[in-house]
């Protein structure tokens, strides 16, 4: 079971796309897995022949559990379908850990919830269960423990800001031999069968805490959220890919919890700095309007596509904004996998990636945006789109504010925000005119860049938008 998002502890297998005896190649999509956020198609990175499928559709297993055996040249060996892709820009996933599949949840609390409750000396009666039928899950017990220890719970959901502030929890990164453990972490690691040297600690000086161990063990398995269909549609069915139910409200609630925890963690760990720049978009918009007049609505290109394209191109000038920050520092990425902030109609924001955006011209990028938005709204995304973004841009919220000050998605190092386009008085050739202006903002990781570099990046985006023909 791959880690398909940094805050994912377990996934539910929905469907196998292969059967024993099928040949599989690197990159083939072999299964559909349900997470808190979306149904995600899982790619395999081994070559060979499918031997045995170890998990039945409908089962939830912790991240790291082996899902199938892949045989190569007659030798049978287990392989876990992993989410990381070949390019150097791929984030580290949690190293597969052998944790026994959770026993079917008893009516009131999961085994991991009981284990945590013992450890934390908590009475399960005092913990509110958020699993199916009110079952108390490991996550519920951990959260209750945190609330008891710290009056201002860092993990508690913050009020959602007016402008969408996207972020996702960091993916745990393998540590080194000198990893420090708290006593509780050591106990939990033994009990849960986790190798603590694979973890990056969130305690003081990078100490691995009990929470880190518990999270890595996938002990905080959330009960599968039923995808309840909405009220019958009042209009003809929208053009959605066949076979997907509309995600129910419980899924969105789970997503909001995940986002809230991730935002808190990002702000806690990344030293953000913020820059803002108004950009005169008048030339670009006039150029675009002329271009769009010659095309059908289906080929119409949105201003957002211009903004995304300019951002992608600006990375060539300031590559310090594109890549991942890891243990050893910043790793720039040759490819630009552009995370796009997309809001979900029932609330929540998700930022899947347009892969290899650097190779796409304006029309291709526009097509990619439309495709990604459509699949995001129905929560049908691929594992690589969920984990590979090297930089994220939020530019689609037209009903929003003028400036977007966002929260970076670790391990990325930058988030570019574009607000609403507004007509403003502007100095043009020494005279007062009216121009359509967009406020661009940059949230950046101060460990990877400084204000000067960030300023150069915004200036590069501005520059590109003054020459739309070259976009």
């Amino acid at each position, binding site marked *: 079971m791959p880690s398909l998002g940094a805050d994912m502890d377990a996934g539910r297998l929905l469907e196998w796309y292969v059967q024993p005896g099928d040949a599989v190649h690197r990159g083939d999509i072999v299964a559909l897995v349900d997470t808190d956020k979306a149904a995600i198609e899982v790619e395999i990175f081994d070559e060979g022949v499918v031997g045995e499928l170890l998990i039945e559709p409908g089962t939830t297993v912790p991240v790291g559990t082996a899902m199938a055996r892949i045989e190569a040249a007659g030798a049978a060996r287990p392989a876990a379908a992993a989410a990381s892709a070949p390019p150097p820009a791929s984030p580290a996933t949690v190293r597969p850990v052998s944790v026994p599949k959770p026993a079917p949840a008893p009516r009131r609390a999961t085994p991991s919830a009981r284990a945590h409750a013992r450890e934390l000396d908590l009475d399960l009666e005092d913990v509110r269960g958020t699993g199916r039928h009110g079952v108390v899950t490991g996550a519920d017990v951990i959260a209750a423990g945190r609330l008891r220890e710290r009056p201002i719970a860092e993990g508690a959901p913050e009020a959602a800001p007016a402008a969408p502030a996207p972020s996702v929890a960091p993916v745990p990164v393998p540590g080194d031999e000198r990893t420090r453990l708290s006593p509780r972490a050591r106990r939990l690691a033994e009990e849960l069968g986790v190798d603590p040297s694979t973890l990056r600690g969130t305690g003081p000086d990078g100490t691995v805490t009990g929470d880190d161990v518990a999270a890595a063990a996938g002990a905080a398995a959330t009960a599968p959220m039923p995808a309840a269909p909405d009220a019958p549609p009042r*209009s003809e069915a929208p053009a959605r890919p066949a076979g997907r139910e509309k995600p129910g409200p419980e899924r969105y609630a789970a997503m909001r919890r995940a986002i809230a925890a991730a935002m808190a963690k990002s702000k806690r760990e990344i030293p953000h700095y913020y820059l803002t720049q108004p950009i005169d978009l008048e030339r670009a918009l006039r150029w675009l309007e002329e271009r*769009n*007049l010659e095309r*059908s*609505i289906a080929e119409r290109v949105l*201003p*957002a596509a211009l903004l995304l394209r300019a951002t992608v191109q600006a990375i060539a000038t300031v590559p310090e904004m594109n890549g991942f920050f890891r243990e050893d520092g910043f790793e720039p990425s040759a490819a630009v996998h552009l995370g796009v902030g997309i809001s979900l*109609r029932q609330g929540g924001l998700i930022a899947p990636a347009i892969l290899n955006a650097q190779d796409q011209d304006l029309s291709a990028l526009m097509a990619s945006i439309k495709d990604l938005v459509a699949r995001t709204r129905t929560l049908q995304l691929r594992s690589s789109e969920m984990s590979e973004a090297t930089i994220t841009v939020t530019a689609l919220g*037209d009903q929003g504010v003028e400036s977007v000050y966002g929260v970076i998605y670790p391990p990325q190092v930058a988030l570019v925000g574009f607000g609403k386009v507004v007509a403003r008085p502007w100095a043009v050739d020494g005279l007062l005119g009216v121009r359509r202006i967009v406020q661009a903002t940059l949230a950046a990781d101060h460990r990877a860049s400084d204000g000067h570099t960030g300023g150069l990046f915004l200036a590069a985006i501005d520059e590109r938008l003054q020459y739309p023909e070259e976009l």
Partner: protein
Amino acid sequence: MTEAEIRAAIMTSLLTVAPEVPPDEIDPTKPIGPQMDVDSIDFLNVLMGIEERTGVEIPERDYAKVQTVDDTVKYVAARLA
């Protein structure tokens, strides 16, 4: 097309994009965007729906004329006349 048919076409296009909004809660005299949380991609999809159902393609320079449901009905009717 009658005005009722045009209105139906527009409402259907809107509700296809935002199915969770109760149609009787949409004020036809106020801007659609804030009422239905429609972003730029959604808006494009609405326009495509209107074009499919009425044959009228709305260019970017006329976006200001189609901010409310009533205005859109008027605009489409005028284009079809």
